[in-house]
């Protein structure tokens, strides 16, 4: 994880004039014949190269929204486009990383990373080469022939990361990918994440419960309120001045960090209070 130092110079990213990679237009999702509304009329656009965090209390529909983008669930109403094409089901243009470990236990680390590329028809030689280079990026080059059973949780998530990025998706979706990891590993993964996204120039949507994680990773935070799931706030993290800060301590020092954190905590408290008062 020492690579981070090379990113000490603030990386800047470029989203301003890019056209939307993803367009969600008036998405609603109802369950059980309309008795439960998970998402109510949600619209947003994601610009190329932008990292967006979905934040909100449990049951606010952020996971449903992510799964709809992934094509694993369908909206009841509304329209979703990725790169101008409507989403009808899952596909390799939208890579997803799950909170649960999804490395295939019967494949070695290398075979796991190759699996996704095999599916989209990348020839064997190129597959091997690409897999090795991505495994190097996630610092797993020593474990190529190991089975996932012998890996730690953080290493398994790095396999998932390499496997997904090797497919070169247009959008990278992450459903609390570090939720099951302990604090230190989580921190290392966040830094690795920033490094990789910077390198691969990816449009990212990440779900998180962790406000600090959202501020650290994201260029933009979409805050969902619960029951029905709606967008409560759509915040551009302007205090970062269009840059990304791989070093957390430098980010925290910036004017505007505390204000934003305060605002997000206050919103979260509001939501929790509404829930407990039986709204």
């Amino acid at each position, binding site marked *: 994880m020492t690579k981070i130092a090379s990113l000490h110079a603030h990386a800047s990213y470029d989203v301003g004039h890019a056209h939307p990679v993803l367009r969600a237009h008036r998405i609603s999702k109802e369950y059980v014949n309309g008795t439960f509304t998970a998402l109510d009329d949600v619209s947003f656009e994601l610009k190329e190269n932008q990292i967006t965090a979905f934040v909100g209390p449990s049951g606010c529909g952020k996971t449903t929204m992510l799964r709809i983008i992934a094509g694993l669930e369908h909206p009841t109403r509304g329209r979703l486009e990725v790169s101008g094409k409507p989403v009808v089901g*899952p596909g390799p243009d939208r890579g*997803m990383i*799950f909170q*649960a470990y*999804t490395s*295939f236990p*019967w494949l070695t680390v290398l075979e796991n990373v190759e699996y*996704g590329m095999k599916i989209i028809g990348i020839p064997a030689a190129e597959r091997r080469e690409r897999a090795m280079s991505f495994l190097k990026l996630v610092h797993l080059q020593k474990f190529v022939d190991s*089975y*996932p059973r012998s890996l730690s949780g953080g290493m398994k998530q790095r396999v998932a990361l390499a496997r997904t990025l090797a497919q070169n998706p247009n959008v990278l979706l992450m459903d609390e990918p570090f939720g099951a990891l302990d604090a230190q590993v989580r921190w290392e993964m966040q830094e690795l994440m920033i490094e990789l996204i910077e390198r691969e120039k990816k449009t990212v949507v990440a779900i998180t419960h962790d406000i600090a994680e959202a501020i650290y990773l994201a260029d933009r935070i979409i805050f969902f309120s619960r029951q029905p799931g709606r967008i409560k706030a759509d915040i551009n993290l302007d205090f970062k001045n269009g840059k990304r800060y791989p070093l957390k301590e430098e980010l925290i020092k910036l004017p505007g960090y505390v204000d934003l954190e305060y605002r997000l905590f206050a919103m979260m408290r509001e939501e929790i209070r509404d829930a407990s008062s039986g709204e």
Partner: protein
Amino acid sequence: MRKMTEERPASVGSIVQTPAAAPLFIPPKRRFLELREQPSPNRSLLLGALGVICFFAVWELGHYLTDASSRRFVPSVENVAAALYRLFAEQDFLTDVLVSCRRIFISFLAASAIALPIGILMGCFGNMRALLNPTLSGCRYLPAASFIPLLLVWFGPTDTAKIALLFLGVIFFLISLILDNTNAVQKELVEASLTMGASRRKVLTGVVVPAAMPAIVDSMRNMIAVAWTYLVIAEIVGAQDGIGAVMMRAGRFLSVDVIMASILTIGLLGVITDLLFRAASRLLFPWNIERRS
């Protein structure tokens, strides 16, 4: 270390006092019934052997405690061992054993060949489950032995009748176990491969089946044990050959030692099949080995 002594020549000859070691910690005594204590492999082997010896000891004791007049109905361990020797040496018991093994093998192969695709399909597809499960799980409650008259009418006292009975005794349970094993495959593995663009067929053959396979082989191991328990019932049907037939004949002559020797043989064969399945599982799924320990 060396350098330090060189720098301090004055200390040569003086007694260097080593600090007194901290008192040894004496751990509490391990009891025989220590909660969640895992014995060492050697100890496990020893305890297992002790159990077997106790079993034979109790048996032997039972023999000698029986009234002398009826002692021949409770043969001793030596009696049974001698009967076993006679069976193999003089009465061509090996042929009967092989006939029984063949029946188990064929019936279990047929049951697996049918249960695997049906169980996997039911585990994967809710509609298949809804279509077949009520019927098949109902069939589990039909006692296999009650098919004997029917099978006799259909096939007569043939090999087919015996194999069919073993088949019926196993198939329905095997299907429902395989269904559960398939259904238990972690949902995220399927979703992950879908988001990577895998087709339905690829998900089925490339993810669901390999993920479920170790558990399925475990289920098969458990069900072949059940097949062995049905063997005697099956071979009573027009008993001609096989271990069951030998036992029925022995019963007519009140040769309890032969009956017990046969029971022991079936038990031993069951244990051997179990070990074979375990070995196959280790060989087929090297990635899954740690699960066992």
